[in-house]
């Protein structure tokens, strides 16, 4: 046995979760446990209370209102991959999620857990950023919404208070016929990506770009939105467009670590971006099948 001693509680409503996290210190919220449990086993995390969300009804639903899609925080990665609703309306989500870890971890890992853990290499924060998603947060003090853009404070630290709970994430899907691409490089299947790139493209009359989103993962402490590159995508329609976009990414601040040097990461940014954009363009040019 490796974890330090703690109390385990499994509330059956959001209300009782909020009461527990507002009145107790050092509570750790257990969602899928695929990142928290290793940290608890290694005693990087020494909680007094572990609060399991798995008993709360309705926290793993994926709903489409006609305008926006809402995904419950406890939705497992496997449920995202198998969601017909997401396959049809937001295939980027499905494509990226299928690259997370392994089947044993995707069976249990959740979207809420992944966003709150905020690993710089994680796929879901990158996708959520590309879609301009909003996170719904509740506490005993009330409800609020937080843009994923404002989620990272710094390395693996989300802008969420200890008495707050992430309940769902919401985003507006892109129009039918948009193109998407998600590529990442890792040294073995299922490892954390060294660099990842997510691209969304909408074309006008199959030619000019009328909307674009490009986000990189594994580059900074959180997902990096490439605004300059998106501007270039919107303003040019030349054949060497993707080259121009990749040139613009040379200015992005890139960190190096024991996994990969700054130079190597820069190289991977170019390669992953090219693959993601090319794929997104190809898919955007295909006729829409309804």
């Amino acid at each position, binding site marked *: 046995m490796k974890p330090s001693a703690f109390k385990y*509680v499994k509330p059956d409503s959001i209300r*009782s979760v909020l009461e527990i996290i507002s*009145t107790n210190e050092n509570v750790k919220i257990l969602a899928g446990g695929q990142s928290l449990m290793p940290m608890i086993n290694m005693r990087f995390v020494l909680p007094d209370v572990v609060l399991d969300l798995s008993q709360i009804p309705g926290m793993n639903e994926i709903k489409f209102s006609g305008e926006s899609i809402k995904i419950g925080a406890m939705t497992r990665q496997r449920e995202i991959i198998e969601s017909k609703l997401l396959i049809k309306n937001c295939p980027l989500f499905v494509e990226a999620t299928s690259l997370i870890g392994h089947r044993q971890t995707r069976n249990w890992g959740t979207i809420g857990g992944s966003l709150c853990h905020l690993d710089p290499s994680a796929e879901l924060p990158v996708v959520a950023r590309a879609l301009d998603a909003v996170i719904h947060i509740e506490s005993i003090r009330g409800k609020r919404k937080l843009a994923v853009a404002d989620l990272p404070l710094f390395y693996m630290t989300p802008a969420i208070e200890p008495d707050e709970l992430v309940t769902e994430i919401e985003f507006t899907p892109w129009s039918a016929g948009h193109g998407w691409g998600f590529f990442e490089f890792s040294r073995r299947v299922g490892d954390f990506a060294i660099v990842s790139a997510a691209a969304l493209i909408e074309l006008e009359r199959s030619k000019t770009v009328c909307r674009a989103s490009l986000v990189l993962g594994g580059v900074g402490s959180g997902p990096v939105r490439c605004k300059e590159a998106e501007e270039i995508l919107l303003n040019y329609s030349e054949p060497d467009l993707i080259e121009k976009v990749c040139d613009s990414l040379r200015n992005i601040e890139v960190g190096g670590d024991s996994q990969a040097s700054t130079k190597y990461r820069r190289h991977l940014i170019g390669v992953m971006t090219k693959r993601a954009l090319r794929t997104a363009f190809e898919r955007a040019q295909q006729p829409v099948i309804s």
Partner: protein
Amino acid sequence: MTDTEQISTISRVSLEVNGVSREVEVEHRLTLADCLRHKLNLTGTHIGCEHGACGSCTVLVDKRARRSCLTLAVQVEGASILTVEGLAEPNGDLHPLQTAFHNNHGLQCGFCTPGLLMTLMEFLSENQDPTEDEVREAISGNLCRCTGYQSIVGSAIQAASILRQSR
């Protein structure tokens, strides 16, 4: 239940393991892997890394492959667990997947085998006729330090074929 001070750090947990109802008293911090091995004496589930990297401790929880070292025993209250001990028939006849591992030299030292078998149990129930690449992707979360992947993949392909014929 707002005052967690009153809650003990020991609980009784009822679960079904390999078709048998069991009840155990566990500390909250006890992992399912340790519970299976030390409380229920089911030492077929192996513990390699204890942080979700090696896959040796994989078991099925309500038919879904799960790393038992990343699961607390208290979390599986009321769940149905299948471990490697539950694969063979009561009379000792091996499960077709085990037979295929035997036939194809799918195990060398055998340490990773229980985890691989349980991962493949789930995978082969979802994909009856997998390609080699699909098998390799499915077992990417299971490490074999003998690096005998070639024969493990061969075992899985043969097991799929045996299972298809028996359907």
